[in-house]
């Protein structure tokens, strides 16, 4: 039992560099910045309490309250703002500005932790207050921001690191947080792939055809697509296999790089052909943060820390083996 626990610890708390964290921080900073800019003209229109936009904010928040009253929402900010004499319009603009500033801070790595917390908070507020308007990209961005918020920041590429000269972070902690992200992605793809496999439409290409021609995603003309209709079943099967096989082949050293490259290409093509640019970006960022190999070698300090941990683990293992002998 003790050996299993040690193995589990070794798997979960494996030493890693903070390169993945830099990818996650910069990627999420870019994602949230683009999200804020993409909705800059429609922000008040979408989130106003009165029916100026397509759906009242209070309606989304009432649905949210029926599930839980503890989730942050723009209504809280508007109520707080009204105590200070701010109108709803001003509070909504302030929330948008806070989100933008937090995302820009994340991009450069300035005040990483407060920026990550604020970006998560304001993003969650906007997503939950517009729950009827939210789709997959919002879930994945929230997942990324949640993991970033609790991750051992700052990373070595951030301004914080350069300014404050932080002490090196325990590589075991970095490894643990990366493992959580890796395993979560495995869950995502496995269940996404399985649910696609249980129907027949992904096997015969009907779903690929419909996804590519369905408004508002239909960026490619059906006349062009129909010329290559023999590829549709292949594309459908490819998607099913790629997603369902992800939790297996991403862990095997030989298949990791091709699988990662294939999944990144898939998301890139989804972005390109369906116009889901933000969705493509967040999926690519999460995948690269989770499984991209560290392109820059670890610093001397990190390597020393790693060597020390390795020595301690070896000594502990020897003690256990001697004890059991």
């Amino acid at each position, binding site marked *: 039992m003790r050996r299993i626990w040690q193995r*589990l610890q070794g798997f*979960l708390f494996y030493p890693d560099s903070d390169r993945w964290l830099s990818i996650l921080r910069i990627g999420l900073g870019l994602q949230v910045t683009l999200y804020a800019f*993409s*909705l800059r*003209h*429609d922000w008040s*229109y*979408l989130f106003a309490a*009165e*029916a*100026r936009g*397509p*759906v*009242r904010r209070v*309606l989304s928040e009432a*649905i*949210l309250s029926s*599930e*839980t009253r*503890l*989730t942050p929402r723009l209504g809280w900010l508007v109520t707080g703002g009204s105590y200070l004499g701010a109108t709803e319009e001003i509070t909504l603009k302030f929330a948008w500005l806070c989100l933008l500033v937090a995302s820009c801070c994340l991009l450069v790595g300035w005040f990483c932790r407060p920026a990550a917390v604020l970006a998560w908070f304001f993003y*969650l507020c906007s997503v939950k207050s517009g729950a*009827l*308007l*939210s*789709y997959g990209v*919002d*879930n994945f961005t*929230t*997942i990324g921001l*949640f993991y970033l918020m609790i991750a051992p920041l700052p990373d070595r590429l951030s301004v914080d690191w350069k300014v404050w000269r932080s002490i090196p972070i325990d590589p075991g902690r970095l490894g*643990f947080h990366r493992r*959580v992200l890796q395993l*979560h992605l495995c*869950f995502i*793809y496995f*269940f*996404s792939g*399985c*649910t*696609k*496999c*249980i*129907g*027949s439409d*992904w*096997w015969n*290409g*009907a*779903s690929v*055809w419909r*996804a590519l021609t*369905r408004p*508002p995603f239909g960026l490619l003309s059906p006349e062009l*697509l*129909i010329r290559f*209709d023999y590829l*549709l079943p292949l594309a459908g099967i490819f998607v099913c296999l790629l997603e369902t096989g992800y939790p297996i082949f991403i862990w095997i050293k030989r298949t990791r790089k091709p699988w990662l490259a294939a999944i990144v290409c898939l998301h890139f093509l989804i972005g390109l052909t369906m*116009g*889901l640019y933000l969705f493509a970006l967040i999926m690519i960022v999460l995948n690269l943060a989770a499984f991209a190999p560290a392109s820059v070698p670890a610093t001397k300090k990190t390597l020393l820390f790693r060597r020390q941990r390795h020595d301690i683990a070896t000594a502990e293992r020897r003690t256990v083996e001697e004890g059991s002998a």
Partner: protein
Amino acid sequence: MICAAWFALHFLLIAIVCLRDTFSSLAQGVSGPASRPNELWSEAETIASAGLGGTLAAANPVRQGLAAYENFAGIEAGYGYFAPSVPSSSKLVFELHYADGRVEYELPHAGGAAAGYRIATLLDNIQRFHYAPLREAILKTLVYSIWQEHPDAVMVRAIFGVVNFPSAAEFRAGTRESYDQLYTYNYRFRSRPSRADAP
């Protein structure tokens, strides 16, 4: 130890949410080798929901806490996007009637493309809602937002339906998209929009 406990709870919740949504997809019925009686999957979905506190009272702190944590971590929904098949696209048309007998047609719209995608999501959500009062409340809001742009209209008819896009083979044979009307609501207005008129 704390990390390991959090890890276990976190992934337990993710697994339950994913299973619940997978069972829900199966309960709604799929064609193919996995077809089974729907009741079985509905029951499995209910059991999975119970694991997330679904059977507890709405105000129960455990249920509230679990739901809040799921929202915080972004794990409140499963990952069966476009699965088991891509659904039909929803469409909403507003028929604006004026006092002089004129009739104009309008579609829901937003300023930017990003908001446009969100409105498309909203329409798909309306299609999924089986609770009629909620569907009607959302449509009322949409109608009111359109009426604010056309305050002279005396009646707005909201026609909600689905666009059936032909399959590849049907498209090759010359079939084009068709529109199936699902619900129609009429809203009458007397004066320019004001707070009191808001539906």
